């Protein structure tokens, strides 16, 4: 364990103590037997190496990984581990196995052992023959490779190549028809699944013809290719999704990162990547020798109506780059001045995504007011720099043109993360200070004086001279010399449109009064133009003048200046964020089935009135629910608690063989057993009884909504009481039984008490003793450092969670008969309580503590907190559960291995590993990445030489596991299991447990290194999932930026795995494990690029001036990566730019405030007209082409291929049935309506009239209009606009 400061230790102790308290309550509640299980179903999870080993199931790997990681980066380790495999150190027998193990292991390592990719993502590897007879390596990717993310996907190919090289296998030489097949297939996959990035044909050709490893795949889609079929070396005609992902989202999209690793590893044969990057980067971003960058318009592709463009790529007036990190930026979040946010039509609110030109693709927006705001021209002609948000709001309606949208704050780490060259920064105060500046000059004269003492001119007094040409500067100087006059310190001269444009372009503030332009102050301005106090041209104008404009003004003024323009970055609005309660559609209050009887609203009340036959008593429903049995009185029921008071257990049976089954497969037919029966349930009676129990009157209650049917395997139900209570607190339930609130993630490392609405006293109670400078906390304006697991939730979320806490208290007191836990009186009381944070498509929750509320509708949390939710995992060893000769039994692995080791054919490898196929057929319990347990065949057993030390894990439920440090452990990510190496598992990691016949999760509470007494360690290989229950512990795995929070106790009490749907991905988004403590070394590496220094070194700016690589100054910038494994890795962070309010600027984006597309589009186009850096005609054309025409054409074509549905039961029909009625008797209606086809037609025609749209696009609209008319007939009534359909 890494050392930790006493302060942080106290912080963690406190979190753990609170967690333990909640756990105790939840356990007491669960004991009552009301829920499907009598224990808490979220296990609490901890080091990566073991997770990896557990995941790949190769014993000994973890130790080796630890050794390697001590010496090199994870990526390098991932490649170098291949050396060991090539040397057959882990018992590999043949080349295929070496390759298989090496690739899987490094994939597991790269994905932090949490995603399913290493196991399920790679189907197999094969060695095949080139046409010249040489061998080549073929890797078969499968669908789940998606979860690995592009970088790991691409690197897996690199690993394959690395090991291939060692083994002396030749390169893959594709045949021409194979290349064409790839191209066709990837495009087809794109049309089916829509790739993040579809490489151009040239890119694909380049990749396939040069990639030394054959990227093959398992068929993943239903569709077959129509062109290049039945190729000799491509086994399938079906589309191979895994292959497409690796090529498109891996190699093509992540080429720069791959190149980075190729260079690091000095690998040959990947030079073509450079060619690719150049192609991708547009024209010719680098010939390595050529310095500089070129505009990239990729972010403008697929422009959607209503999401405005703020700046075209590298265009004057666009965002000017400033390096730095504010306390609320970094990690894919950039800062803009709050005034910019207002001036740009309030489209960007805190947390809104902006697609940017560079360095990455997108950035969340945070308000930072220590950078420059926009400069605008008002209707009266005045040019004003908007210095604060208040002024911005006042001026909003008077702006005629946005000349400059202001600066954008992007951290160095972002450039590092994206492997982008550093580009020149706009001159800013931090840079000025590095060059000797100390105090900001108060006025022009002081600034001039500073310059005369040898400093550069302070950025606040700089004009954007480099945007003018030398001759234009000359023209300006001459004009002012001739027509200007200075009176009372104000420079004034007659209005001239050309001169005014020059002034606007250099962002010189001025006013226009009665056709006279006035500039004040003007000393620096005049001096830069080479004009003296009397406006005469100085002697500097005579003689040789420098060519470049910036040099010219420096020469004329005699002052040192740097470019204020720097590099402009293009940007447009991305996806608007949303923070809101998680609701399924329709949103239920309780997981209780009501079938069709509940009507379309699935109302429990309505169901209780439903009578399927006249004159029968209402409320009796036929419902499909799980069969459970009471262990005490053997009664079979669907209730979780038998009428005798005991907790019931599900009864599984095989639907085919009709026999009851213990375990997960039918021993007779191999089918998975189910536990379902039709019950006749009197819902009315149940409902009335529940109301009685709760003491709630029917009329006080709104609708209580159930679900149509249960989708889980064993179909357990929730108590109706829970639904009634949720309904009375206006809460909705998610599919796993929890109440959640979705929030947008924004990073925050420091906050001020004033911003979070919490008193200084309360914060002191929570452990915030001093501010970042070590001054005791007293004042609400002091800056406090946010510990990794403290979060701020939006106020709306606070209200929702407050309701949830009240609901839990009601639940405890009225249903479970326990004392209430939270006892909150108001929202503010939530502060200090624990929640579970969960990222989408993951299965590990992260423990967090609420320390305040943000006015902006985003969840502010520590970057580590956000990163930790992305990945996270576990590990296993000793008592294994096997199914053999009809019996499931738990036996020690040693006995199992020795009994099954077929000595007659055992092999031994160079490092002393015995391995063999098992001599008897047996199955071991394993779990798939979705957390569904399976019995899998044991394919081999092995005995290994033991390493010097083993790692012992202890979980909170008392499970112990002793494994080699390289062992792969499964750990829970939010809803997947992923594999990591045992040594990467850390305390608090959630591992999947096998307990009582289900998979649950538990936390590792202790990790000890123990010396190994035994000479041997044992392992077995399990088919398909490559994991096994050892001492009751299994393993697991995903990413995203939007996540949700739920109250800790809600998760512990109400969550049940058994509610989760059986479908693949059913366990996604469920908190299958809870990480109680974040360890920076184990979270997404992205967060390691977070820079934590108070200032950048001057080298950053200097490197940027020469377009040097971000990596060149890597060691000069204080980033998390450099602090890893020291106490400073989690505290003592700084930031370069402060901001006065983390909730500054608009709180809600205009995009969501505007209702109709018409309004949004109007706003977008009028904004485009106003912004100098945006071409509104091009915006209009792009919107037409990429959004409206696509929509019109798509819907028109869909109209003539449409499906139909029943209005009553919602059954979908591929075509109209001949009967013309649904089977249920309901009416059948079309799914595509005339209105939805036409919705953008009028708007498109209007755009064509108003904007300069190309003839081609105009004609397309005309043709579509014609076709719509010939499909629907001539307009009878007045054309309905989009507004009529919204």
């Amino acid at each position: 364990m890494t050392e930790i400061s006493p302060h942080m230790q106290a912080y963690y102790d406190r979190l753990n103590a609170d967690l333990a308290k909640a756990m105790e309550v939840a356990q007491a509640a669960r004991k009552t037997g009301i829920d499907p299980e009598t224990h808490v179903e979220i296990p609490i999870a901890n080091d990566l190496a073991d997770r990896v080993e557990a995941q790949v199931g190769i014993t000994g790997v973890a130790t080796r990984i630890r050794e390697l990681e001590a010496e090199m980066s994870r990526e390098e380790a991932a490649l170098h581990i291949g050396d060991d495999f090539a040397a057959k150190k882990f018992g590999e027998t043949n080349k295929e196995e070496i390759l298989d193990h090496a690739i899987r292991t490094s994939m597991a390592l790269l994905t932090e052992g949490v995603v399913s990719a290493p196991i399920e993502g790679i189907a197999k590897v094969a060695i095949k023959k080139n046409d010249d007879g040489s061998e080549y390596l073929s890797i078969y990717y499968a669908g789940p490779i998606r979860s690995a993310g592009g970088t790991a996907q691409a690197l897996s190919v690199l690993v394959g190549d690395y090991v291939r090289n060692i083994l002396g296998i030749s390169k893959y030489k594709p045949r021409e028809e194979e290349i064409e097949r790839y191209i066709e297939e990837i495009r087809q996959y794109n049309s089916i699944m829509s790739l993040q990035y579809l490489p151009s044909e040239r890119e694909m050709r380049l990749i396939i013809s040069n990639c030394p490893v054959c990227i093959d795949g398992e068929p993943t889609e239903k569709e077959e290719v129509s062109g290049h079929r039945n190729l000799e070396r491509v086994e399938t005609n079906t589309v191979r999704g895994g292959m497409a992902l690796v090529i498109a989202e891996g190699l093509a999209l992540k080429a720069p990162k791959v190149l980075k690793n190729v260079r690091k590893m000095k690998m040959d044969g990947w030079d073509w990547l450079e060619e690719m990057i150049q192609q991708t980067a547009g024209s010719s971003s680098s010939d390595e020798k050529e310095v500089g960058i070129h505009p990239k318009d990729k972010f403008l592709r697929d422009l959607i109506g209503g999401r405005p463009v703020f700046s075209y790529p590298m265009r004057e007036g666009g965002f000017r780059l400033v390096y730095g990190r504010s306390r609320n930026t970094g990690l894919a979040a950039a800062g803009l001045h709050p005034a910019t946010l207002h001036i740009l039509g309030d489209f960007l609110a805190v947390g809104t995504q902006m697609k940017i030109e560079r360095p990455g693709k997108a950035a969340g927006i945070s308000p930072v007011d220590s950078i420059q705001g926009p400069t605008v021209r008002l209707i009266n002609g005045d040019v004003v720099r908007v210095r604060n948000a208040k002024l911005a709001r006042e001026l909003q309606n008077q702006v005629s043109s946005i000349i400059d949208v202001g600066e954008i704050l992007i951290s160095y780490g972002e450039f590092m993360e994206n492997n982008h060259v550093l580009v020149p920064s706009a001159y800013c105060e931090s840079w000025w200070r590095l060059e000797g500046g100390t105090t900001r000059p108060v006025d022009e004269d002081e600034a001039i004086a500073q310059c005369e003492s040898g400093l550069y001119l302070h950025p606040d007094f700089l004009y954007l001279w480099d945007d003018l040409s030398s001759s234009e500067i000359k023209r300006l100087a001459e004009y002012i010399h001739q027509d200007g006059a200075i009176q009372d310190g104000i420079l004034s001269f007659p209005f001239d449109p050309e001169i005014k444009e020059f002034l606007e372009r250099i962002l010189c503030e001025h006013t226009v009064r009665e056709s006279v332009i006035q500039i004040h102050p003007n000393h620096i301005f005049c001096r830069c133009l080479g004009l003296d106090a009397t406006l005469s041209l100085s002697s500097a104008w005579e003689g040789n003048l420098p060519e470049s404009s910036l040099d010219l003004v420096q020469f004329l003024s005699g002052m040192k200046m740097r470019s204020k323009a720097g590099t402009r970055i293009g940007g447009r609005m991305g996806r608007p964020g949303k923070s809101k309660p998680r609701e399924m559609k329709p949103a239920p209050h309780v997981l209780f089935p009501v079938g069709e009887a509940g009507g379309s609203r699935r109302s429990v009340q309505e169901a209780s009135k439903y009578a399927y036959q006249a004159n029968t008593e209402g409320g009796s429903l036929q419902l499909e629910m799980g069969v459970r049995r009471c262990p005490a009185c053997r009664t079979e029921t669907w209730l979780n608690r038998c009428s005798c008071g005991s907790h019931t257990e599900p009864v599984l049976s095989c639907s085919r063989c009709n026999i009851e089954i213990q375990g997960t497969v039918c021993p007779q037919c191999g089918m998975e057993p189910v536990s379902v029966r039709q019950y006749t349930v009197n819902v009315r009676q149940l409902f009335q009884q529940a109301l009685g129990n709760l003491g709630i009157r029917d009329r006080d209650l709104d609708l209580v909504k159930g679900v149509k049917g249960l989708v889980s395997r064993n179909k357990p139900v929730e108590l109706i009481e829970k639904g009634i209570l949720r309904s009375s607190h206006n809460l909705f339930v998610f599919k796993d039984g929890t109440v959640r609130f979705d929030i947008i993630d924004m990073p925050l490392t420091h906050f001020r008490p004033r911003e979070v609405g919490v008193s200084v006293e309360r914060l002191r109670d929570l452990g915030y003793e001093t501010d970042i400078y070590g001054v005791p906390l007293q004042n609400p304006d002091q800056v406090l450092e946010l510990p990794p697991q403290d979060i701020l939730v939006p106020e709306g979320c606070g209200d929702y969670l407050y309701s949830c806490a009240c609901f839990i208290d009601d639940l405890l007191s009225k249903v479970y008969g326990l004392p209430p836990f939270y006892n909150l009186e108001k929202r503010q009381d939530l502060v200090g309580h624990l929640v579970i944070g969960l990222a989408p498509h993951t299965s590990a929750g992260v423990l967090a503590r609420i320390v305040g509320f943000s006015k902006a509708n985003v969840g502010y949390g520590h970057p580590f907190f956000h990163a930790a939710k992305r990945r996270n995992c576990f590990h296993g060893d000793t008592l294994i559960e096997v199914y053999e000769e009809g019996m499931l039994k738990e036996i020690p692995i040693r006995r199992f291995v020795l009994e099954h080791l077929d000595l007659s054919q055992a092999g031994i490898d160079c490092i002393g590993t015995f391995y063999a196929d098992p001599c008897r057929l047996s199955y071991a319990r394993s779990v798939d990445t979705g957390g569904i347990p399976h019995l899998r065949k044991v394919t081999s057993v092995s005995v290994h030489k033991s390493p010097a030390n083993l790692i012992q894990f202890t979980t909170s439920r008392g499970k112990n596991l002793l494994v080699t440090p390289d062992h792969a452990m499964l750990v829970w990510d939010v809803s997947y299991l992923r594999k990591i190496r045992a040594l990467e598992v850390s305390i608090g990691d959630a591992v999947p447990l096998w307990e009582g016949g289900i998979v649950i999760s538990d936390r590792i509470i202790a990790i000890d290194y123990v010396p190994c007494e035994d000479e041997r360690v044992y392992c077995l290989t399990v088919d398909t999932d490559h994991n096994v229950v050892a001492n009751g512990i299994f393993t697991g795995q995903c990413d995203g930026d939007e996540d949700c929070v739920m109250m800790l106790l809600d998760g512990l009490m109400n969550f049940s795995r058994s509610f989760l749907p059986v479908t693949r991905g059913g366990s996604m988004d469920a908190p299958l494990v809870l990480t109680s403590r974040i360890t920076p070394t184990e979270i997404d590496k992205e967060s390691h690029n977070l820079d934590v220094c108070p200032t950048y070194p001057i080298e950053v700016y200097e490197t940027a001036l020469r377009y040097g690589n971000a990596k060149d100054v890597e060691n000069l910038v204080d980033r998390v990566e450099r602090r890893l494994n020291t106490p400073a890795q989690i505290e003592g962070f700084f930031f370069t730019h402060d901001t006065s309010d983390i909730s500054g600027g608009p709180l809600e984006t205009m995009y969501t405030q505007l209702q109709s597309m018409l309004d949004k589009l109007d706003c977008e186009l009028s904004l485009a007209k106003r912004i100098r850096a945006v071409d509104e005609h091009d915006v209009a054309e792009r919107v037409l082409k990429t959004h409206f025409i696509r929509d019109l054409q798509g819907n028109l074509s869909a109209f003539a291929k449409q499906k139909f549905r029943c209005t009553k039961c919602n059954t979908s029909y591929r075509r109209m049935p001949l009967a013309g009625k649904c089977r249920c008797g309901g009416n059948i209606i079309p799914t595509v309506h005339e209105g939805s086809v036409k919705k953008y037609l009028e708007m498109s025609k209007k755009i064509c009239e108003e904007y300069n749209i190309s003839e081609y696009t105009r004609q397309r609209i005309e043709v579509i209009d014609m076709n719509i008319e010939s499909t629907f007939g001539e307009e009878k009534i007045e054309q309905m606009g989009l507004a009529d359909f919204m």
Partner: protein
Amino acid sequence: MLDSTMIVERFLDTKLQVHPDVVRYIREQKDDRLIDTIISGVPDDCVVVSLRHIPGLLPSRDGVRFLCDPEVEIISGRMGTSKPVGRVEDYIVYFADRYARLSGMIRGRCNPVPIEALKRNSRYKQEEFAVCGMVMEVRSTGNGHRMAEIEDSTGSVMALFNKDRPDFSEAERIVPDEVIGVRGSLSSEGNLIFADQIFRPDIPFSYAPYTSDRKGAAVLISDVHVGSDTFLDDEWNRFADWLSDSEVSYLLVAGDLVDGIGIYPDQDKELVIPNIYEQYDVLGTMLSDLPSHLKIILAPGNHDVVRGAEPQPVIPEKFRKNYSSNCLFVENPALVNLQGVRVLMYHGRSFDDLIGLMPGASYEKAYDVIPEMLKRRHLAPCYGKRTPIAADTVDRLIIDPIPEVVHTGHVHIFGISRYRNVLGINSGTWQSQTAFQKQMNIQPTPAVAISLDLTTLQPRVHDFMNDSPEPLVL
């Protein structure tokens, strides 16, 4: 029960081979005495028994044709036939019409019972019966059998086609929304038909084509794609010169007259004429250079300016300004009568669907799909896939009456097939391989025209790719 294998064996016993159509005829008649009757009537020198050996089955023509004036008559697909879709009910009417007309063609041969009756009347559990319905869904079962859900207006039922039955290849070719008759027996639960035999609307065994008694020839082309950067200018000019020298009276173009605009993403990069009006004007000029006695019949395709949903209307007036009076614009599909020979022109969008659904079908042999259309008596049997279909009160895609020739295009690969005396001609293209085709590995056969002698219905292939063929002389 008469089994195909058994019938074949019976003939083989007498050292005779038998044409599959004869087997099908005997099965449909359900009369095994017929076998002996046929065998006894077969001449001694005959090796293969074909339809003409069946006593009483004489080729017949479907009515009288008036062969006086107009030389060209548009039987269906005249301008203004296709209508806009009015209401949802149109879809009910549309499929009802398809079912009524196609099932009418089957009904006489298998005496179907309403599907609902299977549930109501227990006698169907004991005896063999037939139903006739439209396929709602078809799939393969885990064991490789085919399972189809067929429905009529009274209800729907599943039918299982056993893969070990001799006729399984027919069952494999069942596509959604075609109308079939199924003879078989009911499962004990009464919810599944074990199918024994499939009936399709098909071309009658006795169908005999018309031939013109006056001399005359038509040239069939399609997919001109004017405006595309891959349009073959020189080849077209050679073709135009050849036409002037040849004794040809009719030129039929089955769709994709121009390359169009916005048909696929970034099409503008592959257009030399990015203006849709100009594309049609250029084609007009090209056609006016052809001899004026030539009757030119122009149908639209998916690249043309009209709506994609079939039936596609004729090219609107405003694009036809530059066309001489010998150009006739028709809809897609259209049935035209050339001196008594009926040619069904259809662009062929449904190839995209059918090729994917038929085992063994390929773009290279799209012409082999035309017989499949004829068997189903429908140009685009599958609804909701790639072929958009506009609902109308009558199904204009049904092949009725039976034409002498079916003329299609779309796939850019020419080919000729014949099915029960109906000639299927897929004409090639005047566009070289496009980027899309390259990517799809489709090798087009551009610059080929197929001429048709109207007196003999003999097609001839003329290739203009490298030089001019001999002029056509009748």
